């Protein structure tokens, strides 16, 4: 059996998270969907939005389809071992099925299908699947529909995923599992009472840090002295993290080196968070958090939810991000962040300014960041920024709210 992960018509709407990455490449619960399925031993093919294909082909090889026994899985499925196993168990029965979540196809199994990957895109595949012979599954599987779902499912499936993931690591103490060349200062305090701690290759934990499981820290990370990294954090490769972190996800190459609190939040790649910056993840009323999403108030169903910060955004020192705010890609934010922030903006609303952050300036900053991290800026890096800039043009046109001091 071969697995085809597909993005569907809503894949690009998970803004800003999925504007610059495949839905199956979003980090949570210690992995992502692509890596989880590869780990399970499957050849994985995928259907992805056109403009992302070249960029991600190295990170996520797209195997050609040479099987007729095919399992299609929506790229927005949370990467949880238990969910994937349930779907695999249904497929093992050999009978065609299709499962929906509201009106989205979650997965479909076609035991005898001639399928040409190149004939489909994220808009056409689901209706092709609906056209096959199958039985609808009664079982409902979750999908990441909104940005806050990432924080929700990260908490829900973190613990069980680590049980599987720890198998690839070396146990150095009860509840602590590490990769190669991990350097942990003897003064580091590790609390595994509520879950495992996994620290991947070449990561260094500086003195007096406090780590609380369940926790996953990726490769080549630095956990700064006196940092407090608490439960259900997923820190992806090459991050530098200090201050206080709780139930949050940081994608690759992001920095939060100094004091300040980040809770129940998702931070994209190449983000820098200045000293003293904190976000709120709980309302004073202790009530359900509602976010504004595509112009509509959307209840999250969660009591704790912080913020979403898109790739390449920079957060100035002492910035205060209010509960449930969504900050776009490549925006620079200052002061109090009381509303959502479109992509490619300079947001200093409390000082009376929201202006466009021009693309050439973002490209120049990208080059400088890459040099510091020994990454070569290639044409595909620039093109991705250009594409995202154009896709998000509408957000900036719509942000016509009058400015006030």
């Amino acid at each position: 059996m071969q697995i085809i992960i597909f993005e569907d018509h809503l894949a690009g709407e998970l803004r800003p998270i999925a504007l610059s990455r495949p839905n199956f490449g979003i980090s949570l619960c210690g992995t992502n969907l692509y890596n989880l399925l590869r780990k399970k031993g499957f050849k994985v093919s995928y259907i992805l939005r056109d403009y992302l294909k070249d960029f991600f082909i190295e990170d996520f090889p797209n195997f050609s389809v040479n099987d007729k026994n095919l399992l299609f899985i929506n790229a927005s499925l949370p990467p949880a071992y238990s969910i994937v196993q349930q779907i695999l168990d249904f497929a093992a029965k050999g009978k065609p099925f299709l499962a929906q979540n509201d009106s989205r196809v979650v997965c479909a199994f076609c035991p005898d299908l001639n399928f040409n990957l190149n004939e489909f895109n994220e808009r056409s595949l689901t209706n092709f699947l609906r056209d096959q012979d199958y039985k609808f599954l009664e079982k409902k599987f979750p999908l990441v529909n909104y940005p806050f779902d990432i924080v929700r499912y990260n908490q829900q499936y973190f613990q069980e995923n680590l049980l599987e993931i720890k198998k690839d690591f070396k146990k150095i103490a009860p509840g602590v599992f590490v990769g190669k060349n991990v350097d942990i200062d003897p003064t580091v305090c590790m609390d595994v009472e509520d879950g495992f701690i996994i620290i991947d290759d070449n990561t260094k934990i500086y003195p007096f840090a406090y780590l609380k499981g369940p926790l996953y820290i990726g490769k080549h990370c630095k956990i700064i002295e006196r940092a407090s990294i608490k439960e259900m954090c997923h820190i992806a490769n090459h991050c530098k993290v200090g201050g206080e972190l709780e139930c949050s996800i940081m994608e690759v190459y992001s920095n939060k080196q100094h004091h300040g609190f980040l809770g129940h939040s998702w931070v994209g790649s190449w983000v820098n968070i200045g000293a003293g910056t904190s976000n709120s993840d709980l309302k004073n009323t202790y009530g359900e958090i509602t976010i504004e999403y595509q112009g509509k108030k959307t209840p999250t169903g969660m009591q704790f939810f912080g913020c979403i910060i898109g790739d390449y955004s920079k957060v100035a020192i002492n910035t205060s991000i209010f509960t449930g705010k969504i900050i776009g890609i490549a925006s620079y934010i200052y002061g109090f962040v009381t509303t959502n922030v479109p992509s490619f903006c300079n947001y200093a609303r409390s000082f009376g300014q929201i202006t466009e952050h021009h693309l050439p300036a973002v490209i120049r900053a990208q080059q400088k960041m890459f040099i510091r991290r020994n990454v070569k800026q290639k044409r595909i890096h620039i093109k991705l920024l250009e594409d995202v800039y154009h896709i998000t043009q509408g957000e900036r046109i719509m942000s016509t709210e009058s400015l006030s001091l």
Partner: protein
Amino acid sequence: MCGIVAYTGSKNCTEILLEGLKRLEYRGYDSWGFAFVKGKDLISVKKVGKVSEAKNLIDNFPQNSFMGIAHTRWATHGAPTNMNAHPHLDCKLKIAIVHNGIIENYSELKKKLQEKGHNFKSETDTEVIVHLLEEYYQGDMVKAIELTMLQLVGAFGLAIICSDEPRALYGARRGSPLIVGIGDNEMFLSSDVNALVNHTRKAIYLSDNEIVKLTPSSFRIFNLREEETEKKIHIVPFGAAFLEKGGFSHFMLKEIFEQPESLRNVFRGRLDQERATVKLGGLELTDSELLAIRSIKLLGCGTSWHAALVGKYLFEQLARIPTDVDYSSEFRYRDPILFKDTLIIALSQSGETADTLAAVEEAKKKEAKVLGICNVVGSSIARECGRGVYLHAGPEIGVASTKAFTSQLVALTLLAILLARARGMPRREGLIALNAIEALPSLAKRVLKKSDEIKEIASLIWKYQNFLYIGRNYQLPIALEGALKLKEISYIHAEGVPAAELKHGPIALIDENMPTVVLATESHVLDKVKSNVAEIRTRKGRIISIVTEANREMDELSDFKFSVPPVPHYLTPVLSTIPLQLLAYHIAVLRGCNVDKPRNLAKSVTVE
């Protein structure tokens, strides 16, 4: 939905084409047309009207022509006029084509071709095809067709002749049917086998993106990579009379089974995925006029009135615009109060319904903005409104409306999405709606595949003399429509009521002789419907429920159950209507009723 027939062989083709067109007239009857190759010339004759009228003009046709193409039209783009009738010819009058289908990107192609100097004579989408062929033709027609097909978005079955090749007939298809008939030193092309069966039973069914070249003694079939492909020759088993109904015993059943296609035609070319909204070319309302609409009033009669009721839910729930529904006949005599920012929407399959036409005239007198949703292009209501949405459902012959109703529902959904997106419906919700609409043809096919289950249910309940139909929310109008279908064709007394209204009166009718059809698909009111059903069960009423696939909540409450696939709740009416159409049909057949021509009813009610 037009009809195509074409011939190349050793006989004079005029009679053959004329007879073929008569057999295809059910596919369209707005106009007819022929083109022949005579020597080095193309001769074309075409006219508005029924094919039978062509017989009177046969003297104008060339006498010894051995190749020709013919067409009977069901207007989609451009009113039924002589100019818009097929065939269409290129500027040099060398190439002639007939077309069945819809070209979605015709306006942009037309603009480009006009810039290159091509002279367009009609308002049709079809004419772009012949000018594209002219553009690409350099002595190799297969190559020209291939290049043309690469430019076209939409559905088409084509028959093509060129005066350079007096014996070579070409065909091509994508989305619309096209069949090759193989005779003895003669070849045919048609959109339907029933135009061929008097001459040959040997047929090849072309697949999408195939091109065929026919000479009297040979056929060659190519794909878009110019590779020749092998095709199986089928022997057509049926008699001609049976085939007129496409193999179905009644037009109504045929039209029920055409719904996957008619549903696709109503949204074809109208979904704008980039902007997550809908494009409706005939609306003639600017963005600011759309935003200025403060209320909507829907007008209709019979089945169209039921579609209008679904429209009320759509406009209020999706677009948040207050909406009223009126019977056309009541509206016109009530001296209705209309405001400048009220949009009037008139629904009529035929576009000739006398009461609705008069209601439109009344609304126009009061200077209201009026919009028509009709199936027949150029009909009186369409012309009177001057703006609107065509259904493109093809001719509906069965008196009880089936495919036009589901197309009306989709047309109303399209309009509601357009208004909703302009008023702040999130992009994400717009995309969900567009994807769900695109899924409807596949899902309708899935429902129709299980039609035998409904036949089985019908065989167990057809003797009852009374039926109740109940539903809530979006499914209330479908309960009313289901009851109307049963009344219309089986002459059984049936009543549709809101499920919650049962206890305010109709529940007194319930006993073991009063079966109830329940619309119990997944929605926020399903629990409420279940409570209503429980009340019927305790009074020994039998329950026939229409439920959502993979939802077992109604299992214990139902005597008979039929499931439809899950879709967003505002699209459930489209799918749950189909089993009710089938139920009415099979009950009527079992009771020996004339399904296509029920007593006392006419297809188009052109009197008050």
